[in-house]
């Protein structure tokens, strides 16, 4: 097996081109779902791989609680540089678990704090919490078992929008809640903790979720240009000149907001998830799908192979 056991850790590098291709060519709904699924599979493979390398690598260290057979020469042959690599893998695994715990608690804490802030003071009949605040903001606050999801929007945000644009904004936020986009965001964030190579997928899923909500909003208000205007106006209203970037004119590529507006002003994305294979878009999607499948399969294969080696040498 040799170095192949490390494949699940490195293959997520393919996430970057996959994210690019998918984001550009698939319907945002399909892109968000596909990329989330890829993140989860690859993160699981990475975690299993780390754990196995750690276990096998440290099996021959005296005093460990593992079966003696796990330090057989055959098993050790599956892992190059077993001892140091195994110890390193366990350390990395500990760091990963720590990062996972921190991300999860931060996520839950922010949601709980936001829910507490709204309190029971606002009417429960409406899913919109309109807060009198000159600062423009709008958020989708996911629900909990005890309280439904809420759209939190400030008067400062609504003040900058026309009547039809407000409807577009509310439809956008409701789409986030209906389709539980926060789960996609959380899953990809956790995946990014397990393997940093998966971080591009996190950004791609966040963007696809926004695009998905934009499309739902456009459908709800019946005019894509209205949603486009709402996004553009809201972004300009909440814009503060970013001092941090001012020194880097090289970052001239358009950010996510103008891309969303441009997409809304463009043609409706095809409802089918798969563009026809003979078009450039279809070809790109096909390549992305094949690459994804190959990466996921190799990662899975390496993880399963390590498991099988261990199982074979474990006396029952």
């Amino acid at each position, binding site marked *: 097996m040799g170095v192949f056991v490390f494949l699940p850790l490195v293959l997520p590098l393919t996430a970057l081109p996959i994210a690019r291709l998918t984001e550009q060519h698939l319907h945002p709904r399909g892109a968000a779902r596909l990329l989330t699924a890829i993140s989860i599979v690859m993160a699981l493979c990475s975690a299993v791989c780390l754990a196995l390398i750690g276990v096998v690598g440290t099996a021959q260290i005296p005093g460990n609680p593992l079966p003696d057979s796990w330090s057989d020469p055959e098993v050790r042959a599956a892992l190059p540089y077993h001892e140091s690599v195994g110890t390193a893998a366990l350390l990395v695994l500990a760091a990963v678990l720590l990062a996972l715990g921190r991300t999860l608690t*931060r*996520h839950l804490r*922010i*949601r709980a*704090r*936001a829910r*507490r*802030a*709204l*309190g029971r*003071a*606002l009417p429960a009949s409406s899913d919109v*919490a*309109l*807060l*009198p*605040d000159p*600062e423009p*903001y*709008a*958020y*989708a*606050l996911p629900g909990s078992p005890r309280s439904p999801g809420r759209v939190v*929007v*400030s008067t400062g*945000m609504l003040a900058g929008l026309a009547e039809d644009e407000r409807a577009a*904004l509310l439809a956008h*936020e409701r789409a*986030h809640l209906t389709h539980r986009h*926060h789960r996609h*965001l*959380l899953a990809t964030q956790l995946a990014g903790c397990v393997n940093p190579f998966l971080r591009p997928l996190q950004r791609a899923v966040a963007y696809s*979720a*926004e695009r998905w*909500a934009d499309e739902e909003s456009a459908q709800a208000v019946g005019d894509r*240009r209205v949603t*486009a*205007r709402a*996004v*553009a*106006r809201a*972004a*300009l209203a*909440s*814009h503060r000149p*970013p001092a941090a*970037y*001012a020194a880097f*004119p090289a*970052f*001239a*590529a*358009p*950010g*996510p*907001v*103008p891309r969303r*507006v*441009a997409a809304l*002003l463009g043609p409706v994305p095809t409802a089918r998830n798969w563009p026809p294979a003979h078009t450039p878009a279809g070809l790109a999607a096909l390549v992305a799908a094949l690459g994804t499948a190959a990466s996921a399969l190799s990662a899975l294969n390496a993880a399963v192979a390590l498991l099988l080696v261990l199982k074979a040498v474990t006396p029952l």
Partner: protein
Amino acid sequence: MAEDTAEETHAPVAGDPRGRRRGQGELEAQVLAVLQRAPGPVTAGWVQERLDGDLAYTTVMTILSRLHAKDAVTRTRSGRSYLWQASSDAAGLAALRMRRVLDGEPDRDAVLASFVTALLPHDEELLRTLLDGACAPAPDPEG
């Protein structure tokens, strides 16, 4: 006794025994909590006595002024000073609490899906151009 000049004087939070610098939001919440327990309109001195820690009178005044600017408290003139009362507006209080959450969590955008994310330097120009296009009369669908 010119309370109005207390605006933004930033009197140092002297004598905090734990040496922990308390955030503005936390102080505002404490002052508001004291006001909500008050039997009626009270003076700034009354609030100061009931706050934990030795907050300077000017600090309490600064916080009260700030809360007033956010419509979280109301004040009425009584002789040479003001009487303060917590605003009963539930939505206003919720807004104040929500702002504290949003300002205190730098990573909130990763958790709560925000309607719009921050713009890059050239985005503003680009957006205005796009917006002009979106506001122009709709192209003839027949064409």
